């Protein structure tokens, strides 16, 4: 793996639980700078939770989440908000502000965090929208956009402040093949053009593997495999193979735990 100085986010021995349910158990993940890192795993393994932990919206029970030198869970409110200015996040739903136009949505982070003049903000917003191919949609309201377009606008908003890290929460879910292709292309191209670090959380195997430089596979609170997409394809583990090939039954069973079928059927209704 990369030398330490090229690690932008270093998660060390982090545990997190919700109620009595352990979501992460002593997990360690390193995100190399300037690369596309994918975090994959079945639904319900807390991939979105991981992004929220990195963004400081949740606090781990133990362990460190280092953004360069800063331990995110230990930051005060002000420092945390400063750290967040270095991160952009693309939410699964897009999470556009429904009371603002597309233009205002993208301009919002600039208006809040910079003292730029109106003209400059306009230029930046139009450039960001151009990058996602939606400059023509600047005057539309979020309700007038298709799902794929909304996600692209949200992406333009996430990169408005030129963040060091862009986090994508399930960017491909619920997209038609064309929108999916556009997004895959965009994420890769933006990563190269802007030189930021990308973290993709996803369970869309084909799309994610096509753009990821390094992949962590998470299940049951642990990293069960890691490596480049090629290395991962060669991993000799039932669990990894089941996920990568989408097999319906395997270590992750098809059936939810239940008593024996025959017994269940023969049982009298109480």
């Amino acid at each position, binding site marked *: 793996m990369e030398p330490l100085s090229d690690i932008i986010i270093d998660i060390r021995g982090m545990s997190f639980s919700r109620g009595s349910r352990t979501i992460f158990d002593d997990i360690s993940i390193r995100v190399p700078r300037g690369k596309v890192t994918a975090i994959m795993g079945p639904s319900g393994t807390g991939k979105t939770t991981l992004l*929220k932990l990195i*963004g400081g*919206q949740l606090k781990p029970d133990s362990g460190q989440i280092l953004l360069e030198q800063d331990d995110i869970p230990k930051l005060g409110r002000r420092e945390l*908000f*400063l750290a*967040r*200015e270095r*991160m*952009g*996040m693309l*939410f*699964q*739903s897009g*999470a*556009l*502000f*429904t009371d603002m136009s597309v233009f205002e949505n993208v301009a*919002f*982070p600039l208006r*809040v*965090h910079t003292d730029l003049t109106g003209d400059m903000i306009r230029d930046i917003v139009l450039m960001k929208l151009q990058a996602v191919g939606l400059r023509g949609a600047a005057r539309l309201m979020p309700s007038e956009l298709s799902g794929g377009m909304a996600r692209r606008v*949200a992406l333009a*908003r996430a990169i408005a402040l030129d963040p060091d890290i862009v986090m994508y929460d399930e960017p491909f879910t619920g997209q038609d093949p064309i929108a999916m292709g556009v997004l895959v292309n965009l994420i890769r191209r933006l990563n190269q053009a802007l030189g930021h670090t990308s973290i993709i959380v996803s369970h869309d195997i084909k799309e994610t593997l096509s753009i990821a430089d390094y992949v962590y596979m998470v299940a049951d609170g642990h990293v069960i495999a890691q490596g480049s997409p090629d290395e991962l394809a060669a991993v000799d583990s039932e669990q990894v193979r089941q996920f990568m090939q989408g097999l319906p039954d395997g270590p992750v069973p098809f059936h939810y735990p239940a008593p024996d079928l025959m017994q269940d059927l023969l049982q009298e209704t109480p």
Partner: protein
Amino acid sequence: MLDWIQTLGESALSRLAAFGRAGQLLMQSLIARPAPFTMFPLLVQQLYFVGVLSLVIIVVSGGFIGMVLGLQGYTILVDYGSEQAVGQMVALSLVRELAPVVTALLFAGRAGSALTAEIGLMKATEQLASLEMIGVDPLRRVIAPRFWAGFISLPILTVIFSVVGVWGGAIVAVDWLGIYDGSFWANMQHSVDFYEDVLNGIIKSIVFGAVVTWIAVFEGYDCVPTSEGISQATTRTVVFSSLAVLGLDFILTALMFGEL
């Protein structure tokens, strides 16, 4: 039996915890870090949504309640030959009781429920989370302006309710039933005291404004972000604020007029 005690304790604990969270929300959004300059345009926008758009329901209800009071008052008082006192009856019942209470109840239904649903949906669609990730505190940006808008609007709406109500009473009593307008207004002027009656009514409405909006923004912010959770939160807003208004009204009335 043990189960029953356990559920009782559990629900009491969760209510207490919710109350604590509500206090924390109020503290963090209003008192700890006020930002008057960035908030002003947002506040004006919310004053429009919460206050101005509630005007129709307040004016219409105020008018009808005043008219009913005039009519009912007349039919009772005319038996004793003191129908001239209709003016003071209408005015006193409005400014002391009906205007603050009915306005607050209508406000909870019209504006409180809308606030809860709006904030709840913002939570469900991750807009609050995305504000946080952009580095903007949703408590300041979303909660604080809405709270202040409700707090400022309700007393003003209450005064409007009273004025329209008195006018409605006058239309029925003077123009329709033919009470001499000089005695109608003179009796009213004579018996309504500014501090005792008008000011106390406004104090009530200030308290109701704070409580109703507090409940509304808290329920929205604290809701379970699903369609079911939002509908429950909206219901809770209307039920809790109505109960709080009626209960507080009794307490405030006892404090204000108790020794009369």
